[in-house]
């Protein structure tokens, strides 16, 4: 393995993230020059360009970074938990389950909670997304975990079945929905960051930071889990507790982000994988690195989404799918070769 210390990777990724944030804040339907950006930050005023930058562009760029970080870290968590490199939140049902939960809220809305609607307010969507994502992930995990071992075939099949079930549920709700509701479900299923404002950026930001910090706390136990549940137990890890907590943490990270930006697939798959190829499978590195690299990549994807069809905008989920699906196929082919040769990367 290469002898560059982890710190160097963090610094380089951190700088790249800063750079991508600045560039991403510049481009879009209305380009904003760097001089103006820094001027606006120091001297708040009320020009239209400034309103655009402070109220629309800036929250969007930050929301994008937090979402990318949250999704990638949950990808790393799920890969460690399932001990399989092809797992990501989309595959194990978290995203589609959360989407289903959100569709329920879109269509049923206030009739669902009645008098409670006002108190729940902005939390209605995240809470339902969390429940939906959690139930779906738990189902896939239970179905694929036979006698303490995760069987990849069962995992893929269980993932397909639960995803289909959730997609069917989402489809049902968009069918019975009135037109504007249905449109928001469809758009939301492809992922969109256009709804960014300071309120939802704040919610996602706080939850993402909290979730990532908690994940770091479990990184050592997750490393031990790579050897198998029995071995991890011998190293003093309470494996049952750990599994439940990681599943909850994953659902928390994905559901909150998903409830705001919709379903964005494949980020959670590619990011930890790139980091593994770059350096190491140590989970502490993967979690910090995924947070940084995920934020960078999703920012670049969102920049593309705004640029290629400007002044309109492209669904970001389409871009991540185009970039991610080939990586997924590449991994599957490598995984098949594993049965004939030594290790996954051998």
């Amino acid at each position: 393995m290469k002898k560059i210390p982890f710190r160097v990777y963090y610094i380089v990724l951190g700088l790249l993230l800063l750079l991508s944030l600045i560039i991403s804040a510049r481009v879009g339907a209305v380009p904003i020059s760097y001089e103006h950006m820094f001027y606006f930050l120091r001297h708040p005023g009320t020009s239209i360009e400034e309103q655009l930058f402070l109220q629309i562009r800036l929250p969007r760029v930050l929301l994008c970074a937090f979402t990318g970080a949250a999704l990638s870290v949950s990808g790393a968590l799920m890969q460690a938990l399932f001990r399989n490199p092809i797992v990501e939140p989309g595959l194990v049902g978290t995203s589609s389950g959360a989407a289903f939960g959100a569709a329920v809220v879109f269509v049923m809305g206030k009739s669902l909670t009645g008098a409670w609607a006002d108190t729940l307010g902005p939390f209605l969507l995240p809470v339902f997304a969390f429940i939906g994502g959690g139930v779906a992930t738990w189902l896939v995990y239970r179905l694929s975990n036979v006698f303490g071992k995760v069987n990849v075939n069962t995992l893929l099949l269980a993932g397909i079945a639960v995803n289909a079930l959730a997609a069917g549920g989402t489809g049902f709700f968009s069918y019975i929905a009135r037109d504007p509701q249905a449109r928001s479900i469809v758009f939301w299923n492809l992922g969109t960051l256009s709804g960014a404002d300071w309120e939802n950026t704040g919610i996602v930001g706080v939850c993402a930071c909290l979730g990532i910090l908690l994940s770091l706390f479990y990184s050592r136990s997750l490393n031990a889990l790579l050897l198998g549940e029995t071995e991890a137990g011998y190293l003093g890890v309470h494996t049952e507790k750990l599994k439940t907590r990681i599943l909850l943490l994953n659902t928390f990270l994905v559901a909150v982000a998903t409830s705001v930006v919709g379903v964005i697939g494949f980020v959670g798959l590619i990011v930890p994988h790139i980091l593994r190829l770059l350096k190491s499978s140590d989970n502490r590195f993967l979690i910090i690195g995924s947070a940084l690299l995920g934020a960078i990549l999703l920012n670049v994807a969102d920049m593309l989404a705004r640029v290629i069809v400007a002044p309109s905008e492209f669904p970001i989920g389409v871009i991540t799918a185009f970039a991610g699906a080939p990586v997924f196929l590449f991994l599957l082919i490598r995984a098949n070769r594993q049965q004939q040769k030594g290790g996954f990367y051998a």
Partner: protein
Amino acid sequence: MLEIQGLVCKIGSKTIVDGVSLSFDPGRLHVIVGPNGSGKSTLLKAFSGEWVPTAGAVTYDSVNLTRIDKLHLARRRAVMTQLPELHFPLSVEEIVMMGRYPHFSFSPTPNDRAICGQVMSHLSIQPLSGRDYLTLSGGERQRVQFARALAQIWEAPASTSRYLFLDEPVSSLDIHYQHQLMQLARDLVKEKIVLIAVLHDLNLALHYADRMIFVKQGRIVAEGAVPGIVTPSLIREVFDIEARLLEDPQSDIPVIVYA
């Protein structure tokens, strides 16, 4: 001191371990032998706390195993299982460091690093330290796993003894490393470690064990000091094969040859 009282382990309706009572003192190398499926590995799992027995009690220094916290147990009890599977690339160094995981809370201390270094040079796997575990041969992996188990219990706790369980620790090793590992195990025994190993090679067991325990169908057939305990009739009874004991003029340990 490890004590086992009336141990019974069942999977569903199948009885794997059927009423075993034994005690293991530190300072001796205890070796369990028996045919495939006789319950040897299950015994180790019950001793080490991985399995909760259906009936009976396991006590460490007179404290019931069920009353010892998992993390505290991990600081003084290590288990080397038959090769665990790994699906991700990790460096040998990190795998050995896993043995120190129960001892530090976020980052390894200089002491943890020093222990890993000592263990690796003890097992002559220092040259492998930067290598990816997945690229190692079976024998190299087995030595790395042994190093991990050693690193876990390298330091003696103040008042309690340490416990080391080895489940077929030499199954992939060449003859040189088989003897190196067993010799190391012998040296460890002097340090007040309760050491129990499951072995298949009876000659290797005769050479290094202080005490042998013969297991068949979940029961203890015979147990006692080496070499006196080993007789052709016992081998026939347990393994269903004819054997003779030949005297080695160079040592007082007999050699088993199979008919």
